[in-house]
């Protein structure tokens, strides 16, 4: 099976092969290194004119990418660690996402900024964070987080070539070596796929399971943990869940409603558990629960979040494990809800 890393690498290669307007800018991109996480491997050899290894200047490379996008190219900017997206925040918030609307629809910035996020690699407080919640709710910014249920590279290729909005593309580090799941690997599940306005949402339940008592929702690597939890809840606790995995974190549907697949699942289960690797408060899960409350009112029977501790992520393995959400955390929360 193809790994997420291989898939992303193929997606980049496909975008480069398909369209001469695609450029890649980032730190340490040149082969044989190919970027700190190797997602960009091979590109600099094959497209030396269009792969620019840059100084350690995150804000400037985001800005350079924005200027190139403004003038009709389709650049991709690789940030070595998602933690350093803070250095790009001004470009993202005050230029990249502002130009299209503040210039009255007369400018577009088809720029993809991609970056690894997340912990479980022992990199400590400043190289392990899941910061995308800081960038959710910025008007005009599309935030995508691939998972193993559909081809991450294809999503990336489409984001580069087909998306005229700026895209913030989140790659969980621990997902890189994981296989992109094929039909055989998912044989136990009944899966529904909703197209969404750009990226798919998957709904999973175990084949032959009764109607769900609880809806789990998670994205990126957390969807792996949630899938394992779903199986264990069924077999070990006879608690039947449905898992909804969005690929697009923002924008969300207008008027405060939930993503339709999530609403459909919740209409059956009445209970919603959100699982995210970002810190607990004021985040992605909070928004899902707020929407659930608004849309379902008293039909929402239970609502909870599993998330990271509200503390810097420790470097020590044992402490890091304790700070980040685990399958056990999901099992505990789920069992308390039903």
């Amino acid at each position, binding site marked *: 099976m193809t790994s997420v890393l291989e898939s992303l690498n193929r997606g980049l290669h496909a975008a480069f092969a398909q369209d001469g307007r695609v450029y890649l800018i980032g730190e340490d991109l040149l082969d044989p290194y190919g970027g700190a996480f190797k997602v960009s491997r091979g590109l600099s050899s094959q497209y030396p004119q269009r792969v620019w290894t840059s100084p350690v*200047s995150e804000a400037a490379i985001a800005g350079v990418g924005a200027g190139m996008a403004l003038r*009709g190219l389709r650049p991709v900017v690789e940030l070595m660690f998602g933690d350093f997206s803070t250095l790009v925040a001004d470009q993202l918030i005050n230029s990249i996402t502002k130009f*299209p609307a503040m210039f009255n629809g007369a400018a577009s910035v088809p720029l993809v900024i991609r970056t690894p996020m997340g912990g479980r690699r022992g990199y400590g407080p400043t190289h392990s964070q899941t910061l995308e919640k800081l960038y959710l709710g910025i008007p005009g910014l599309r935030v995508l987080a691939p998972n193993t249920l559909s081809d991450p590279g294809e999503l990336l290729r489409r984001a580069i070539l087909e998306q005229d909005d700026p895209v913030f593309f989140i790659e969980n580090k621990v997902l890189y070596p994981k296989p992109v799941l094929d039909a055989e690997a998912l044989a136990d599940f009944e899966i529904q796929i909703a197209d969404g306005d750009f990226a798919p949402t998957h709904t999973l339940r175990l084949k032959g399971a009764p109607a769900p008592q609880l809806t789990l929702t998670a994205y990126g690597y957390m969807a792996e943990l949630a899938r394992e939890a779903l199986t264990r809840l069924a077999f070990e606790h006879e608690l039947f869940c449905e898992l909804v995995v969005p690929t697009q974190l923002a924008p969300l549907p207008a008027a405060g409603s939930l993503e339709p697949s999530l609403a459909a699942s919740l209409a059956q289960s009445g209970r919603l558990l959100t699982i995210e690797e970002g810190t607990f408060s004021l985040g992605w899960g909070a928004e899902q629960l707020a929407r659930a409350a608004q849309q379902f009112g008293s039909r929402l029977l239970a609502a909870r979040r599993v998330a990271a501790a509200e503390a810097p992520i420790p470097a020590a393995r044992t402490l890091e494990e304790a700070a980040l959400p685990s399958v056990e955390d999901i099992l505990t929360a789920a069992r308390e809800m039903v």
Partner: protein
Amino acid sequence: MRAMPDHAALYRQLYTIRRFEETVLDAFPKGAFYGTTHTYIGQEANAVGVLAHLNEGDIVFSNHRCHGHFIAYGGDLRALFAELMGKATGVCGGLGGSQHLHWKDFYSNGVLGSTAPIAVGTALAEKQKGSDAITVLFLGDGALGEGTVYESLNIASLWNAPILFVVENNHIAQTTPTELALAGSLAARFAAFGIPVVEMDSNDVAKISSAAQHELAELRATRTPRALVLNTTRFGPHSKGDDTRDPAYIEELRTRLDPLTLHAAQLPASERQAIESEVDTAVAAAYAQAEADPPPPANHLAKVAPP
């Protein structure tokens, strides 16, 4: 390249910017505009002198003090008034306001320094596309406090971006004199990155124009970055009525260094007066038209920024 503009044409542009900005400052207290503004009075020779040498398709990146740049670029006066008034006919339909303009290949943003890497990106994009277009970026002395500017100079030089950095050093940033904000030499900042820099101490549009002509010709020939540091003067407030400087000092600057007076000497009085009266009429007409223009439709925001 456009022919070197004649003295009358230069004077017309200087005077148009001056009349436009005076009209803005007069009308602001009367409630004609909403928000804020930064006028270009005293710096007109910079925009006029530099942008006289643009070719079709060249890109201009401007800052918060952008009206003069926009007018010298060829922007429409009525559309600019309308933008400040928040009218549908404004440069950006009322969405941008005074410091956020985009028309043809002209862009401005009010976030100091943020434009530097973007402008470098536009220059690199045009080079990659095989076009002859170059980018001109206007920065104030105050923007040189921003770190992204230096990242951008480094990248512009490393990657040979065809861009002209124009620093308008009016010796003040809002209320802070340059001496309190910038250490070291201004020109040496560019030299340190291997970017050839020319520094000028003049409000004479003819001198600025010929320096810019030379710099832009070199830039077009080498397709590598260059810089022009223009030591200049701000006669007006930073925005509206917020000048903390001694009025006598400003009066002295005006007497000595007004770019309009300096250039007027090149023209017979009758020709100058004819230009002034034509421009007065044109600016007044543009203002009246903008005033009569409709506001943006209520659903306009949803059209450009779908929910």
